[in-house]
């Protein structure tokens, strides 16, 4: 008879081997054996993706591998979440992420999603060309801690300010950590001007900014 530890270890190994099919099969086996889904997440998925995140942080893993790992984790996580009561899974932090309205680039946010997931921040990736209302609605629905807006084009950079103003008008600016990033050259000056909580143009810098602001504003240590 298989134990919970064995299943969790094998799930971890499957993620480290980028074997999505095997990981899902193991998760299903774990549920069939009546193990708690939350334990499979905490002891199987989370340490594996964190291990990949650490390797990436040390420069020992290329981004595509991390993204495959994150993709695998997300798929297995979605399956496990369906088997458990809503709200039981409590990641350390939640983030709603997307490219601003009019911006059709989503490679950068996919990278941020993978790296943040690997570091314990559960990411709801809304994709590209996301209107401000959609960012806020998802954040409210999921109880997010962070809203992250990316802009690759200088012509869409102003949408980051639009989002900040929208949050203010709704009286919700202080409720969320608002981070900006992307290749449209946001800067410390722009960040200050639109009163965002942090900025980055590089994924590892974005992670350290997010960690810092989460600790300062929400008391969450990642």
């Amino acid at each position, binding site marked *: 008879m298989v134990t919970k530890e064995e299943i969790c270890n094998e799930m971890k190994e499957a993620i480290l081997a980028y074997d999505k099919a095997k990981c899902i099969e193991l998760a299903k086996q774990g549920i069939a054996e009546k193990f708690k889904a939350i334990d499979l997440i905490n002891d199987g998925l989370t340490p594996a993706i964190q291990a990949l995140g650490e390797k990436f942080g040390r420069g020992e893993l290329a981004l*595509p591998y991390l993204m495959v790992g994150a993709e695998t984790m997300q798929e297995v996580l979605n399956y496990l979440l369906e088997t458990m009561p809503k709200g039981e899974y409590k990641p350390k932090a939640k983030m709603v992420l997307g490219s601003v309205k009019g911006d059709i680039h989503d490679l950068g946010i*996919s990278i941020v999603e993978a790296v943040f997931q690997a570091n314990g921040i559960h990411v709801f990736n809304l994709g590209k060309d996301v209107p401000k209302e959609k960012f806020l609605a998802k954040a409210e629905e999921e109880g997010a801690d962070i809203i992250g807006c990316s802009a690759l084009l200088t012509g869409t950079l102003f949408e980051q300010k639009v989002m900040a103003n929208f949050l203010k008008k709704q009286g919700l600016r202080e409720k969320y950590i608002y981070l900006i990033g992307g290749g449209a*050259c946001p800067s410390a000056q722009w960040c200050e001007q639109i009163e965002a909580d942090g900025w980055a*143009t590089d994924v590892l810098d974005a992670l350290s900014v997010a960690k810092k602001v989460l600790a300062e504003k929400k008391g969450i240590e990642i």
Partner: protein
Amino acid sequence: MKKGERIRYPKMNRMWRIASKEDLEIIDNAAYHILSEVGVHIDDKECIEYLKDAPVKIDEKELIVKFPEYWIREMIAKAPRSYVLAGRDPKWDLLVKSYQESYFNLFTSGSTKLYEWDDNTNQWNSRIPGEADVIRGFKMVDAIDAYDGFFGTPVEDVVKTNEGLPAELHTAYNKMKYSVKHGGPCAITEGAMVEWDYLGKLAAEVQGGFDELKKRPILASLPSCIGPLQSTRQNFWATVGGAKYYMPTYPYWGGTAPFTGPATGPAMVAMGVACTHYCIALSEYLAPGTPAIPWPNTLTTDPQSGQLAMTPFLNIGDGIGAQVYQDLYGLPVAGCAYCLTSALDEASASWALALITQLLWGVNVQQVGSTPQAFIFETIPMGETLVNYCKQHLFELTENFLNIDNEHLALDLIKEVGPKGMFTTKPHTLKWIDQKMGLFWRSNDWIHEHSDQWLAKGAKTWTEICRERLKELDKHEVTPPIDKDVDERCNALLKQADEELALF
């Protein structure tokens, strides 16, 4: 590429050729003409004595020797096409198998002055280097896997030289003690055979005896014609000393256009090949079968400043000369890529260009030459990045990248991903993203972040980043250390050499 990982050069299936075989033959014939009709000035009667049984024409009054073509050809034919350039540790033996497949980088500078950055005054300070600096350089080069060994020394022990001691012997031994890699040529410039005898004994002690030294030569000689067809006694002794102690030889020409060499390219190459032919022939005459790695150097001097200049011609001329040896004689060749300036931003640009152009036309043993006017330690990590950058270029000329087959064209994958998809996490991408394939190389010390982030973090220059790496390199321990008994015996030899050879 991970830090510390040793990346090898790929086989060069697409080496660039500068001149046609017909052109190379014209240059080679010109070189024979120079040797047989103009001859070489050997400035010492005792040296000329070594050639008394060879079929050469000696003008005893002018000390000029003329060499028949057939004899030079006969001698060059004795040079092996494959051989070992040994390290102290056999793991670092460089196996030169053929000119199409063996490529190595040897660090060098040979500077007699040292520039060090002073953080307090924010300026470079100049000083005379001593033994501690020499050792520091050897250990740093030992720590960097991109360097396969040494071509001389990063910096000379000028303090000892000024004391009248045989500094080059101390430097040669320190190189074998503070690195496990191939030592390359030793520049014994003053002493005669007695100094070469000490050098041979030191090398034999380190390699485990003369028989072992013959099989695994750790040091080499560097004979040359220093001026226009001029072989000085010091350079002659280099050939004799090297031959006596089974050392491979790196024959080259030290003439520079437009002063000690003609001002046109083909003439420079012909002179370079002639002088290099002469040095090879002499080595093979004295010790048949000596590995000879020709370096038909074609230096130029800036006609306005009188300083050596890293002109494009150096790379092109050296390349044509090298291809004479590769394509007409099947010999692996040496080349030099120096940064001939103290301004590192300028140096690194010309250095990278010299490295890559020479590699593209197939130089086998390449000198990674740091600033020879005044050595700067920061160039050691800087050269590492440039060497690896050049290897990246070469990878992209190999079957790893340019194999035009179904796997590499990936039409099925392109169809599968379609117009809206992403390639990022596809198995094909994961397979080919391996950095060892060379396609996705990244330097350890270049700026990869966005300019604004770089600015926010202090806008460090590459030189400053390299300077920070020096602290890490200084911690390197040479493994394995030299055997204690060997060290004692070598120190006793050096003490004896100091007593015997001291100038004052």
